[in-house]
């Protein structure tokens, strides 16, 4: 009997302890979705963007909010991120948490001085996930203020869909974990996405924005001017498209934020920016594209671009000649014709010419990045590791490695599948 009573008491006691949250209820927590860091006169300006649960679909309003209603921004001047959150905690009723933060946007001014301290915080913080994104913007706070998702009612999902493009797309596919690993190991230099805002545009009414027309072409004059700054691509690959920097595409109305282009780093220091077409090339060289749409110039049909869906059939292969400091990169791409003028259906050897355009575009990209900027984005020095038996010998070699001395040749094998519902011959 006593044993039975003991069992019952134990079960009841355990059940009571497991029945609910101990400590903080989820409703009491304010989830930070994004963090912007800009330089201030004394310390940093932290833009803390947190989710507004009453406006998120399924929240208290049930119908969800519109535009930028789903997030709130708060700017705090503080020496560190923790000091900023602590300060913000006294302003916002909820207890702010970084556990669902999806992106950290850092201003170019800070990035030029080095990101090691910030990425160290990310790596050592238990709340922040290692796959959080880092983006570079001219003004981080302005970018976050400009984020007003229209068709997405979950701010975390918005950032995820924007920065985690499985098809490659106009931004490099690197996150904080990869950046941290790249600069601590010294095996390669890293590239991060560029973010920006389409500037000088008059606000559209909330009613219009609520229709979810994210792709509207209603642009203000100033936005069109900015759009004109982007230079068209001239190397055949990406023919007719412009090499946009963030803020130059200007196709959004309500949502002014844009994410395109590459922030190029050397170690942890930001050294320059490249456009959206360059990001496409970068993703090809990193083996990170699938079903990515690319436009090609055809000399037999100079007025009409040819669009293909590109897929990487094999990871890029690197043949490195250490003595002569030359690298031969072999790409194997498979493409599907998406649009081709009818009169040029029998355009001869289009596969070879498209491959040559990829060669030219990638070689041009590598020349600008390696010989111009001096950044080892492909991690050529990391690929030498296998030639050394110990870290010490490898480190000694790396000290003498200068990206500017290296020459690249790219050989692309591009095969057009010509499948689909249209007969091409």
């Amino acid at each position: 009997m006593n044993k039975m009573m003991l069992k019952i008491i134990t079960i009841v006691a355990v059940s009571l302890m497991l029945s609910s949250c101990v400590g903080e209820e989820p409703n009491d927590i304010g989830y930070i979705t994004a963090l912007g860091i800009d330089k201030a006169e004394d310390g940093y300006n932290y833009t803390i963007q947190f989710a507004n649960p009453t406006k998120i679909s399924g929240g208290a309003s049930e119908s969800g909010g519109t535009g930028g209603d789903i997030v709130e921004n708060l700017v705090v001047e503080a020496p560190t991120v923790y000091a900023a959150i602590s300060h913000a905690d006294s302003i916002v009723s909820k207890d702010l948490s970084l556990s669902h933060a999806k992106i950290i946007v850092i201003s170019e001014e800070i990035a030029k001085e080095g990101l090691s301290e910030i990425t160290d915080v990310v790596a050592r913080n238990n709340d922040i996930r290692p796959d959080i994104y880092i983006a570079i913007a001219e003004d981080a706070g302005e970018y976050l203020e400009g984020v007003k998702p229209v068709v997405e009612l979950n701010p975390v999902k918005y950032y995820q869909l924007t920065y985690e493009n499985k098809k490659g797309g106009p931004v490099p596919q690197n996150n904080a974990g990869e950046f941290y690993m790249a600069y601590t190991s010294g095996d390669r230099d890293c590239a991060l996405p560029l973010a920006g805002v389409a500037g000088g545009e008059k606000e559209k009414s909330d009613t219009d924005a609520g229709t979810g027309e994210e792709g509207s072409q209603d642009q203000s004059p100033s936005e069109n001017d900015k759009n004109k700054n982007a230079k068209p691509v001239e190397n055949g690959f990406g023919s007719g498209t412009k090499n946009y920097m963030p803020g130059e595409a200007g196709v959004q109305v309500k949502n002014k934020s844009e994410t395109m282009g590459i922030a190029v780093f050397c170690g942890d220091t930001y050294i320059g920016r490249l456009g959206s077409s360059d990001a496409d090339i970068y993703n090809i060289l990193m083996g990170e594209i699938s079903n990515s749409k690319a436009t090609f110039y055809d000399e037999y049909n100079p007025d009409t671009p040819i669009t293909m869906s590109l897929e990487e059939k094999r990871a890029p292969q690197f043949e490195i000649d250490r003595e002569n400091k030359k690298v031969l990169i072999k790409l194997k791409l498979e493409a599907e014709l998406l649009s081709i003028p009818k009169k040029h259906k029998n355009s001869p050897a289009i596969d070879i010419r498209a491959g040559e355009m990829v060669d030219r575009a990638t070689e041009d990209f590598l020349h600008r990045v390696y010989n111009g900027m001096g950044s080892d984005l492909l991690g050529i020095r990391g690929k030498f590791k296998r030639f050394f038996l110990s870290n010490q010998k490898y480190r000694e070699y790396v000290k003498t490695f200068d990206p500017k001395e290296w020459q690249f040749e790219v050989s692309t094998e591009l095969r057009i599948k010509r499948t689909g519902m249209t007969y091409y011959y």
Partner: protein
Amino acid sequence: MLTNKQLSSIIINAIVVKMLVTFPRNIFVYCANASWLTAVYVTAIAFGLFIVIQKLYPSKENVIALADRIGGRGIRIITGIAVFAVLALNFVSIVRVFPAVIRLVLLQKTYVEIIGTIFVLVVIFGASCGIEAIARVQQLFLPVAGVVFGAFLLMLIPDMNFGYLMPVFGNGVKSILVDGLSALSVFADLLILNILLPRIKDSDTYKKSGRKAILFGGACAVLIFFFYGACYSYPASTEFIVPVYQLERLINLSDFFSRLEALFQFIWSISIFLYSALYGAVLAEVWRDTFGLRHSKPLIAPIVIGLVGIAVIPESLNDLLHFEGIINRWLYIPAFIIPLIIGVIYKLFHVKQSEKSE
């Protein structure tokens, strides 16, 4: 009596538990990305040493019993204290590190003192249930832990970069062969197998379970070092206190399964509880045998609480980890030397006695 499976289960668990906490980092500091090679190397050495040691011990007599036969009470007490010290030092850091890790991963709002107190109470309770009971639970639990461990490694494959494992010899051949010897400390728990000899049916069971434990435990150690080295490049790999937890954080199956570390830590926690309970019980038995006492159960609580007292001496967790690093660097020497010396002396003593009797 402990069966072959029960015995191998508890020793495999004891070896692997160290790998789940702070041990891998200490090895990465010396051997860098070649730590997995170091693990292969020390597993081979441990296997060889075990083959030698197991030949020296007769059935049902452990190192303390042999010490008694060699030199009577005095040698027995000296040997017993040495064995107790080795086991206590091997276990002491877990008492403090484990509650800290649990707080970090599972119970962030709970005071570490509360987690530590519950941990100690559970260890005392588990140890009081006896070694046979722990072994039976361990036998049931090990296949579950094995499946979870296998799934854990599979989910890490997308995050691996084999380039991080180069240069193949890490910080050099010397670092593997000389500094890497400290990784032998992961097999210090083989001393428990020796202590449990009186509970083993015959010497064949002792030999089989010991070999199995070294091979399985060694394989797990090699896999953890290999995956950690391939997911975190050197020197970033030396910056994290609990490498296995860092690996868990990389796993992201989808939006709904992006924080699987809590599940893994839950499973590892059961392993650590079983390991700690085993240590509580074994330490009490060693103390009993050393001083010729009748019972070991009343000793469990004072011993565990005493170890907690030692574990909280270092001011911070970092100080404790520094202390643990020093211990792990040298612990393998007494852990293998004590049973080896006592075994060799006993053999010589035994041969002399047989010659006299002839």
